[in-house]
């Protein structure tokens, strides 16, 4: 997958609004592989909706979302499953980790799908992000900042063409967010993937090639 295009797209909840001033909605927004984008938004402008549309979780929009010029509205279940396993990685704003599992198991359950990374690599990332001693701790007992780092690692244990990072560092200090950005970009570069970071204020310090205002 080489490009994601939002063609005239608009969440249904905004359908009655006439004052939409956005670089994404009701325009022709293009995201390409191997590029780095920042989507800046105020709350309530549909940032999480955008992510949900792109990974096929929600379809309550008008207009089109195109993957390589294919309208995703016609994709079936198995196509979306395949995309989520091999092409689209998503760091959810609400993380969507499993509190009953340990930090490592949360990553493992994702890695089991494709066996993309080995245990050594995963443990290295845990160490680098300063949570190496927490691998056997249940997610439910970790702070939000720690969970954010686990969610980040989970997003990287799959092959992807695009990485959607929805407010990945909202609860992280500068040092950790810098390390996280480094790991993320190294991995994305290695895969030649496009990276879309969203933010409602504090954002990762990265050399963004294009900034969209939602």
């Amino acid at each position: 997958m080489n490009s994601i295009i939002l063609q005239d797209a608009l969440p249904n909840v905004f359908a009655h609004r006439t004052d939409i001033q956005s670089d994404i909605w009701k325009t022709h927004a293009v995201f390409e592989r191997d590029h780095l984008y920042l989507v800046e938004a105020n709350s309530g402008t549909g940032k999480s909706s955008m992510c949900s549309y792109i990974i096929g979780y929600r379809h309550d929009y008008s207009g089109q979302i195109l993957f390589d010029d294919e309208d995703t509205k016609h994709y079936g279940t198995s196509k979306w499953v395949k995309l989520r396993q091999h092409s689209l990685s998503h760091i959810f704003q609400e993380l969507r980790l499993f509190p009953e599992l340990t930090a490592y198991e949360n990553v493992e359950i994702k890695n089991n799908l494709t066996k993309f990374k080995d245990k050594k690599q995963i443990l290295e990332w845990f160490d680098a992000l300063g949570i190496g001693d927490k691998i056997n701790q249940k997610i439910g007992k970790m702070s939000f900042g720690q969970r954010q780092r686990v969610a980040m690692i989970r997003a990287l244990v799959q092959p992807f063409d695009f990485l959607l990072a929805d407010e990945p560092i909202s609860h992280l200090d500068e040092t950790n967010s810098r390390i996280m950005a480094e790991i993320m970009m190294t991995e994305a570069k290695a895969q030649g993937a496009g990276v879309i970071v969203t933010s409602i204020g504090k954002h990762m310090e990265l050399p963004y090639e294009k900034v969209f205002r939602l």
Partner: protein
Amino acid sequence: MKLVWKLLRQHISIGQLVGFFFANLLGMLIVLLSVQFYQDVKPAFSQEDSFIKNDYLIVSKSISTLGGLTGSTSTFSDGEIGEIKGQTFCKGVGKFTATQYHVSGSFGLSNQPALSTDMFFESVPSEFIDVQAGNWHFDEQEGIVPIILPRSYLAIYNFGFAPSQSLPKITEDVAGMVEMNIAMRGNGQQQIVKGKVVGFSNRLNTILAPEEFIQWSNQKFAPEEDDSPTRLIVQVKNPADEKIMQYFSERGYEIAEDKLDAGKTMFFLRIVSGIVMAIGLLISVLSFYILMLSIYLLVQKNTQKLQNLLLIGYSPAKVSMPYQLLTIGMNAIVLIISLLLLYYVRNYYLDMLWSVFPEMDTSGLTPAILLGAALFAVVSIINIIAVRGKVMKIWKNKE
């Protein structure tokens, strides 16, 4: 898969599953037991007389003292036969045809005559006789007549005649080997043929020979005689139908009473088995309902987890599988345990049945196994579809 199971087994209610397990076990056992018991007991009633099926009645006219003196006929006219045929309960009518000439038979082993008597034969149309076609057949060239005797004759011989004459007792199997010479006289002719006992009947108190033999011999030895039947064999749709009794008693016909009993017993056995099975099925359906509610509740409680699994790339099929396997596993265990229980219960009642009907042969557990497997398959398929449906609802974000 291990991790997925670790996640999805959260909120499983052991209490609900145990409840389902015992309810379903009870229902399954009752269903299987009713079918198996019916299959096992059926031969005990039908095998008593394998030559005449149970829905046949034997009808004759009452012989009254007055009628005997005035010489009023005890035979059935064609008109009367036609009328019986026209009744709603009637599926078919056959005539008893008797020999019209003099017959004497002598029995013995290896040409030593042991018993000689005047006798007669009767026949009914072959389609009313349930003997393999090859055995129930007379050929003038071969000169061997197959015969069905009343079982009571054997009893008379074994318990009355044989001990007093110091003769050996005869079993039914040996009776088939007994030689019988049949001497026929009439119309100025005489002929001897061999007879061979092919079976014994509880229900026909006559000596039965194939229709073709009777026709041939009557033609030869008594061509002039009238062969109007004195007895009829009537096939009915339901032997327990009260209209039958009504109809025949209104016309002064007699039905051999005991011959209705086996038919009635079978009929009631069928009804009782049916009711018991229906109760078993009802319990099964209710327990199945418990299982589905329990699984639905489980899916409901784990909606968030299922949704997250789907969002990180698990397919609906993979996410459904743990719950599908759980239900199939439960159903399979219930099936196996109920078959085991059935096996023991059956051994218990078979012992009792055997003591009452020693000659009964049984068909094994096949009917119960087949029915159990069919129920298991149907229930499992519904379970699989239902779980998948629930997960797809989550996929479509409708839960």
